[in-house]
């Protein structure tokens, strides 16, 4: 369910005056203010030309969990906020919102990143994988998820999706990790309840499970 019942509302926020001349730039869409998204081409304009878009809403396409997903975003919207709000993909959490805690972790072209510190418009043309994209396949949990549950690596659970995404990314590059490597590898995520003991064990166990061929 979109949080924006009236999509036109999104574009009523007019951009502030800019000192730039806009002549010579292809897209005038973003600068004219109240343009309904329906009037905006569905091509992701910023992707192919050195054009300037925004500050008002821009129609973009994001590849999320293998699906081309349409969204209308102001350039200033973060990938995290667009995922959680407009697209209702809420596994990634907004916690510090400043790239310190890892609760918003997603994979971008297979690399783990902080979605709070990526502009949604900048995520066009990239493969974005959220926790929802791999955690369950055909009703079967991913080995990292299974290992997190088996080792009680979650309490309140709010940091957990971020940790699971980071753990998967870590195991993708460290299929045979040592205990020390696990501790070094997951330094970009924070937990408040104190689930680190379980997470350390879970990641080691997931590595074993994935070698055993149970990887989804």
């Amino acid at each position, binding site marked *: 369910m979109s949080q924006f019942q009236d999509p036109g509302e999104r574009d009523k926020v007019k951009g502030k005056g800019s000192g730039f001349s806009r002549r010579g730039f292809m897209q005038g869409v973003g600068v004219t203010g109240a343009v309904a998204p329906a009037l905006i081409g569905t091509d992701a304009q910023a992707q192919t030309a050195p054009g300037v878009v925004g500050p008002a809403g821009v129609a973009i396409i994001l590849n999320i969990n293998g699906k081309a997903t349409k969204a209308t975003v102001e350039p200033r919207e973060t990938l995290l906020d667009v995922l959680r709000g407009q697209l209702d993909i*809420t596994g990634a959490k907004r916690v510090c919102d400043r790239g310190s805690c890892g609760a918003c972790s997603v994979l971008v072209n297979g690399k783990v990143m902080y979605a709070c510190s990526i502009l949604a418009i900048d995520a066009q043309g990239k493969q974005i994988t959220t926790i929802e994209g791999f955690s369950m396949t055909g009703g079967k949990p991913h080995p990292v998820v299974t290992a997190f549950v088996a080792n009680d690596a979650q*309490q309140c659970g709010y940091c957990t999706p971020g940790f699971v995404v980071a753990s998967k990314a870590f195991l993708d590059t460290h299929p045979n990790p040592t205990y020390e490597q696990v501790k070094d590898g997951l330094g970009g995520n924070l937990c408040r309840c104190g689930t680190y003991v379980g997470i350390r064990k879970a990641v080691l166990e997931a590595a074993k499970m994935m070698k055993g061929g149970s990887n989804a």
Partner: protein
Amino acid sequence: MPEYRWPDMSKRKVMGQRFSRLDGVEKSSGRAKYNSDLNKPGMLHAVLVTSPHAHAKVRSIDTSAAEKHPGVAAVRVIAPAGTEIQWAGWEVAMVAANTELAARDAAAKVKVEYEALEHFVREADLKKVKTRAKPAGEQVEGDPEMAAKQADVISEGYYGIPVLTHCCLETHGNVTQWTPDNKVEFNPSTQSVTSIRGDLARLLSVPAANIHVHQDHVGGGFGSKFQPDRWGLESSQISKQAGGRPVKMFLDRASELILGGIRPSGFANIKMGAKKDGTITLWESESWATGGIGGGGSPPIPYVFTKIPNRRQSHSAVSTNTAPSRAWRAPNHQQACYLTCAPLEDLAAKLKMDPVQLLIKNAGLTARPDTYVRQLKKAAELSEWSKLWHPRGDAGKGSIRRGLGVGAGTWGGAGHDSTARVTIHPDGTVEVELGSQDLGTGTRTIIAQVAAESLGLRVQDVRVKLGDTNYPPSGTSGGSTTVGGVSSSTRKASLNALEKLYGEVAEALGAPADQLTVSEGKVLVKDNPAKSLPWKAACQKLGVKTISETGSNVPAQAAREGLNTGGVGGVQIADVSVDIETGVVKMNRLVAVQDMGLVINPKTAESQIFGACIMSICGALMEERITDEITGRVLNADMEFYKLAGIKDIGEIVVHLDITEENDKRGVIGLGEPPAVPGIAAISNAVANAIGLRVPTVPMTPMHVLNALAGRKS
């Protein structure tokens, strides 16, 4: 009436087993929906305008530009002209708009004129706090003067433990919808689904019956999430104003750290006296603490060793221009534990005595001498104390110095008021419903275990439904009271329902109802187990009926019934390495020996203790709310400089669960808070042992450690 007592430890099949938590897959796969994840049709987004001044009068507030901002549905003034602001971050106005961006843009257009007043925000220095301190008067016990004269050894020191913030990962807030039919749908992030309804009813003057509260998961609370809060009230008003549109209002990170939760500080000048043999004879303390503008924070010292014969104590509550304190995981206990166990260790060093021996020697000054002696010995064993401990400062010559330290704590933790409803359907399905909540402690899972145990079923046969005011009322999850409350109510409701089921199937089994029992998915005749009905077949006898029975934990009866009690001790020993050149403290190990009652799920119980230990490590080494004297603001209202330990920063944690027949007979006892108490003191003592002197204030950041080593005041 059924016999509610827990089955004998040896006969339990489901309780006591290490079950993985039932909502584990949901949480770890990212599918668990927290109320901060909700996106409702037509939902407005609300944000706060807060005061940049720590103390000021609102001269005027102009919301006209904000109201005209595109997409804005409502602007509410919370602090009208004339309001005296008492802390930076005070809620001044709330703006709601179609999008969060529009709400933020509009909030920036709210024009507030303030008349800045003098503020006071730092309380560590007693000389500076005098005018803001409210002394509670002196308490004297015995003859402290004489004791001071007669003591062989006197140890004196200054100790401090700062204000912390709960830093819940899911910030405080709610989605709320107050529709024109005067009904309110409230989806908060709360530790108290049941009682928040009544609190909101009072705030909104809406009948409680018109309010429905629902929450599946909560992203951390730690004592800070009981009330609807000002933002709950104002966002509900906005919903009403907007004709009943849902409003989402969650604090941003900065406000979460500034307003969402404050643990009071604790500071003290402490003098202790003892005989040569270590017998403690004297306690004198001049303590002060702040919990915000209203003062607050009164650590119960001396802690655990409460029966020191000669005592003189005075405490002052210090009023600061900071947001008011909230309950913390074991309110006041960490402060009290630090302010007692650190001076105790200093006394041991002065006596040239092993601190574990000093505590054992003085166990008679505690409420449970046997427990503490047993725990001290166990913790010493698990921490290799006899091998690794050395007299203070005798840690070798290199730059890395290792040390061990001990702390002791206590907590109540008896079950709260709770009612459960167990419904048995004709198809054999079992539902357990409670207006309770699972803070991540494993509440859902232990309820299922209790119901399954009581009904002779497996955990997967039971559906637990929590977090809704349509379910029977259950207490707040605070004070480690939940597990005792919900396990007892679930036990009673399950047995009450089962009694009804026996009545329905007695005829079919050809035996009186009181001769029936359950085991391994069957209803059977006690003396003739061959006569039995599978659970489903038994339930089919209900025809179109369902059985729905409640059971309540009544705190005043619980101990008599043997279902739950309270009152535990705990001992922790820390093992640290300090780099004396850089001041960096690294945890090697934290050993937790925890006194407990009946343990329903050792796996989640262990997790509670791991978490409590890690929280103590954060508190001992990193966490501190830093306020600025000049601007009056909080300088580290973020997760970059409000530091929390990461996965590599905690060393190894060793948990000893004291699961014994004897403890089991005490019934269920809460476990969230007790292990969160002794760690900070133990770690501080370990650092003192390593470097040969006390770092007087926690957190023991490199700054504080190097300052202590250099004899500089921090």
